């Protein structure tokens, strides 16, 4: 099991979510994270189950397709098939900034401690590290940099507005 970091801390409670692969049948009960295709096809059936439903997105999935479902989605997960595939960073910003998703946003897949700083800035509040990563040591990565130049989900005002005290 990958080690889960939530809100910059090791997750203490057991993770109740089960991630379903594409084509995998969903169980009658329990919290599941389903692929976008399943959500789009079986939304009503899924919502009638006992247990919560979250959706996971592939790098090429369009986050706008979930924009009207946020009220019933406590969790959206974004898959990183390789840590060098940066599409998930744009997905996260779009979900948070453009569409206003306020639930748990979880990164999973090929996720290294060396990505944590960027992931936290684009709005991921849950990070499921790759299994071989030392999660306790990885927590230090949140503090790799004490400042950043750009506007981000974490700090919408870019450094130049904070420097001059002129916020937009």
């Amino acid at each position, binding site marked *: 099991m990958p080690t889960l970091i939530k809100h910059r801390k090791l997750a203490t409670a057991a993770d109740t979510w089960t991630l379903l692969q594409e084509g995998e049948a969903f169980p009658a009960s329990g919290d599941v994270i389903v692929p976008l295709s399943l959500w789009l096809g079986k939304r009503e059936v899924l919502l009638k189950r006992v247990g919560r439903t979250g959706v996971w997105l592939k790098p090429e999935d369009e986050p706008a397709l979930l924009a009207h479902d946020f009220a019933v989605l406590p969790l959206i997960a974004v898959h990183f098939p390789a*840590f060098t595939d940066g599409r998930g960073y744009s997905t996260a910003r779009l979900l948070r900034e453009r569409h206003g998703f306020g639930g748990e946003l979880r990164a999973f897949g090929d996720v290294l401690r060396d990505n944590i700083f*960027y992931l936290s800035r684009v709005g991921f509040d849950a990070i499921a590290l790759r299994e071989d990563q030392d999660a306790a040591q990885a927590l230090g990565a949140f503090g790799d940099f004490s400042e950043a*130049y750009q506007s981000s989900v974490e700090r919408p005002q870019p450094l130049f507005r904070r420097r001059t005290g002129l916020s937009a």
Partner: protein
Amino acid sequence: MYQYDEIDQGIVDERVAQFRDQTRRYLAGKLSEDDFRPLRLQNGLYIQRHAPMLRVAIPYGLLSARQLRKLAHIARTYDRGYGHFSTRQNIQFNWPTLESVPDILAELASVEMHAIQTSGNCVRNTTTDHFAGIAPDEIVDSFVWCELIRQWSTLHPEFTFLPRKFKIAVTGATTDRAAIQVHDIGLQAVKNAAGETGFRVLVGGGLGRTPIIGHFIRAFLPWQHLLSYLDAVLRVYNRYGRRDNKYKARIKILVKELTPAVFAQKVEEEWAHLKDGPATLITEEIERIEARFTRPQYQVLKANDVEFDVALATRPGFAAWVKRNVHAHKLPGYAAVTLSLKKTGVAPGDATADQMDAIAALADSYSFGELRVSHEQNLILADVRKSDLLAIWQAAKTLGLATPNIGLLTNIIACPGGDFCSLANAKSLPVADAITRRFDDLDYLHDIGELDLNISGCINSCGHHHVGHIGVLGVDKAGEEWYQVSIGGSQGVDASLGKVLGPSFAQEEIPDVIEKLIDCYIERRDGDAERFIDTVRRIGLEPFKQQVYARATRTPAPETLSA
């Protein structure tokens, strides 16, 4: 020179600490080769043929004497006493050990330098006109905008793992000395009718395997929106650029596949959401950055200097150097000087530690302690008094930096090639050397006139062969090194891509081939005001082809004769 504030310094220092930890984990076996690779590349560290190669950023090519001394110190302490200035205004060290790289980065940070994003699939060092701020044809000084882009691109949370590398070039002058048409994004700073600064935006230009001239997607982008618009372009690229094939992953392929019009429309749609958001620039920030630039305290001088004029009339060697290596300055009595790193027998762009120290001293004495790196791999003293030119020439001659060949055939642009680079198909430095030896006669060189000769050791095109008036490309044929020659390429406002002459040549044939091309040009040029590139454009490839291949027809093999 932009001077860091505490926050700028803190980010660079923390980057050193981060990379020190990554290196430690790698050496301890806790970070695999595959995981470490993208991380070290984003700190400019390649594993090359002989040793690691470290590429250090020289943001927009601007360097202080203090920084150059530090580079000399690094070359001496961690390398073999020299460095290589690249076509992207950076410097590369070819022989550091992996273990020493964190220390080198710490040395760099002590003089407000870094190697952040000098490689990897991220936004690279922004390049600009090496005459920014001093060119008589300048409309907008590009340095402030380049620094803004440097800060915006540094550790950008969304765009650090792009499909492929991403290069931005900015020019603020009417003559394009930054090759903006062959960059992923080219920005031409202009003024509108109301005198407000804005940018013409080009996307999708590039060299490499698929050379393409960039497309204009916006006629005037008001300066306030520069960063939000860049965010929009990068987001479209990050989301839709191809990741299945690294040879099709540059933005130019996406622009081509979508068509420039559709790409532009996607950017506009994205930008509609970002425009006027927090990334919108404010006057206070432009002023803050401008105030952190040290600017030369110019004197009021007369346009002409009598002693300079006398020296010009009486010393032909000095006059030849002034003609080629001294450039116009916007202020009377000042000039810019190119110190040529293209001496015969020296690899293009290489400078020894001693030369770097001496050049730093020249910058301190004559040019307000600052200098620039040109993408033609030379160093420039941008703000010298005309009355000091003779002394500078004499000092430069002693240092082997006064070869009067700027803009001429032997001012060759070349990548490090197969001698150093693990990507290369073929060597480029020995080819450059053989050509400069062939054309060592300065009178002949000056008679040939302006000519850009660019050499790349492979299709990655680090030597910009596509935009050389003559381009030489190393190719691999069944394990052997061959060279393809093209003519008709050009950078600048009238940018064009060279066309391949025909079948490739062996290394030792190249000087002859170049000579035949030159002979053809000399025979057919319409007076000596017509440059090589003009002649190629006027008469086309065919006459050159005939001249080169006519006598090169090889004797048929013996068995064919007896058959």
